[in-house]
């Protein structure tokens, strides 16, 4: 029986604190990595995998060390974990910049996201999480009742740790993130661990030297973002707006690389980019039963399409859905997004289409901007059935797909699935871009001449007349094996897509 050392409540408090810190660091680590690697399923998997492996190794080692077989004391472990957690934002920034090539394009990013995020997670999270894991067996060992009632002690310590994890999980997302941001949240967790080290015992000198890690890490150069107007960490992602020398403004999200979500070209409604192509289906939107023509944008972002439609066709009632309210704010602040456009904020695109009752003449889906983030629930047959259900007869749905070729596995699968639901689906590459636009009609599409007439009426034929060229659009055959809810392996498709690009096929 151990009669020395901290009391039971103190030990339980340290177990609670460690459990909370584990979850804060885990959840916030993904956010810290987002500006370099995004926060796709791949990144989450790597972070969770490294956290679990490190905890397991730490717990096992801690068990041995607690039995007096060498190793580190709990005070040193907590101090080391705390110092490394305080330095984590800077370590991730330094490594992210080293791993990612400066001129990397989004379509080439797959291996860097996969392996780079694993590497950064291993370096940044491996040691602190292993140290945190090693603390729990120590706490059990230090408890005065450990030898007479080991089961009860272990249960109490594990319970306190799990309760701490619970508080850490909700506290990180709902309190720390909105109040202080991800970097400060991790630093606070690190500081709490250092306080825990003081509570449980004096750390050794070797561990105390780790104070230098945060100091050195702060010397790491940050990522240079030329022309930055505003950057913000939202509830969902890291977003920023920058401006070119010619005044063109772009809204970018997370790692972005050479991609962007919304754009404004000074003095022009048109952008010269893929957004312009979506004017055609919206202009062709037939009226509903009340005689009003409506268009709905899924994935409104900073509002490029909505702004264009509002300017080009004032009779068209434009609305949309955007899950991230901060993107709308940035759109209104920097990208000329009109304030009167009705937007369902904070809703997922699929949920917005399921709960509403209005019918639309056109539904524009711009949710596949980055293939790594292809939301699987927005590319299945069931989703497209919802889209069809919300279209008026003769209405059109338009998809923005990213890919270099028609044979691209993601493009092929999503467009093919789209074609299993809509009556007439065609697709074309937007010239000079890596975007493809797929149009799906509920009923028969209007003829080419009628489409051209609409463009001429709105003064857009010179700019986007290519969208009515018959030889550019080609029919999309329905997929033999469409993507369905529960079986939409978008990550595997994105991997195949990247392989095809890399191999030059």
């Amino acid at each position, binding site marked *: 029986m151990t009669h020395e050392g901290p009391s039971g409540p103190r030990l339980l408090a340290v177990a609670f604190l460690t459990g909370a810190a584990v979850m804060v660091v885990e959840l916030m680590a993904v956010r810290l990595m987002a500006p370099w690697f995004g926060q796709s399923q791949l990144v989450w998997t790597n972070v969770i995998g490294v956290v679990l492996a490190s905890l397991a190794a730490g717990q096992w080692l801690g068990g041995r060390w607690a039995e007096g077989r060498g190793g580190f004391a709990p005070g040193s472990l907590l101090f080391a974990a705390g110092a490394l957690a305080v330095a984590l934002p800077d370590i991730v920034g330094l490594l992210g910049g080293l791993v990612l090539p400066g001129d990397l394009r989004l379509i080439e990013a797959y*291996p860097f996201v996969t392996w780079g995020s694993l*590497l950064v997670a291993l370096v940044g999270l491996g040691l602190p999480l292993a140290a945190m894991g090693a603390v729990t067996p120590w706490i059990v060992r230090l408890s005065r009742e450990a030898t007479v009632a080991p089961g009860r002690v272990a249960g109490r310590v594990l319970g306190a740790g799990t309760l701490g994890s619970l508080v850490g999980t909700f506290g990180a997302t709902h309190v720390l993130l909105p109040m202080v941001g991800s970097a400060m949240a991790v630093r606070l967790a690190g500081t709490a661990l250092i306080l825990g080290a003081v509570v449980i015992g004096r750390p050794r000198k070797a561990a105390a030297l780790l104070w230098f890690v945060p100091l050195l890490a702060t010397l790491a150069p940050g990522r240079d973002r030329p022309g930055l107007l505003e950057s913000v960490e939202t509830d969902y992602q890291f977003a920023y707006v920058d401006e070119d020398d010619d005044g063109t403004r772009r809204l970018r999200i997370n790692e972005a690389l050479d991609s962007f979500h919304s754009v404004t070209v000074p003095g022009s409604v048109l952008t010269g980019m893929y957004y312009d192509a979506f004017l055609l289906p919206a202009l062709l939107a037939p009226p509903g039963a009340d005689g009003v023509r409506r268009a709905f944008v899924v994935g409104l972002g900073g509002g490029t399409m909505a702004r264009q439609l509002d300017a080009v066709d004032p009779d068209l009632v434009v609305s949309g859905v955007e899950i991230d309210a901060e993107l709308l704010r940035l759109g209104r602040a920097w990208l000329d997004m009109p304030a009167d456009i009705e937007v369902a904020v904070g809703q997922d695109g699929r949920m917005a289409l399921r709960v509403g009752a209005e019918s639309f003449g056109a539904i524009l889906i711009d949710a596949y901007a980055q293939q790594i983030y292809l939301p699987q629930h927005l590319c299945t047959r069931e989703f497209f059935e919802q889209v069809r259900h919300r279209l008026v007869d003769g209405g059109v749905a338009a998809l923005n797909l990213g890919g270099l070729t028609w044979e691209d596995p993601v493009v092929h699968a999503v467009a093919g699935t789209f074609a299993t639901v809509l009556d007439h689906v065609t697709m074309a590459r937007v010239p*000079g871009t890596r975007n493809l636009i797929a149009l799906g009609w509920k009923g028969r599409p209007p003829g080419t001449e009628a489409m051209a007439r609409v463009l001429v009426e709105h003064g857009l034929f010179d700019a986007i007349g290519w969208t009515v060229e018959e030889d550019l659009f*080609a029919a999309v055959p329905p997929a033999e094996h469409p993507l369905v809810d529960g079986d939409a392996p978008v990550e595997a498709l994105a991997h195949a897509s990247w392989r095809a690009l890399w191999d*030059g096929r």
Partner: protein
Amino acid sequence: MGVRRLLPPLAVILALVAPLRAQGAESILVEAQALRRQGRMEAASRALDGLGEALTEHQRGRVFLVRGNIAFEQLAYGLAASLYEQSEASFARARLTDEESGAAGVSVAIENRGRARVEGDRRRALAGRARLVQAAALSLFLLGLASVGFMAWRSVEQVNRRGA
């Protein structure tokens, strides 16, 4: 039956199949490349004249890769740039990059109604860096496992020493 006996009928089959294959852009590029290898640059250029039509009529959206030296690629660049006006900007940028680096062995991707881009050396460098990142991640993972194993071995050693 020897392999030699199979060769004549095989040659006939190939002779029949080859013209069918020689419909698309690949065959034009292959022909032009062969002429280039023979040093017949003007003939190679004439062969490439048919590239535009072939690309617009066949295999919409596919990417064709041509590998060779800079002289040949620049020939293709010029043609592609004039054929695909809408992509000229991105194309010209790619060519400038190439001229600056002076790298040999680049490849050209010519896409129907799309862009042509210099890839080759850049792509190889990226692939090398991706492999480096992959190797570093795997090495670190294995190093972590080895460290845990070493610490376990050391603690067992200490126990044995105490026992002895």
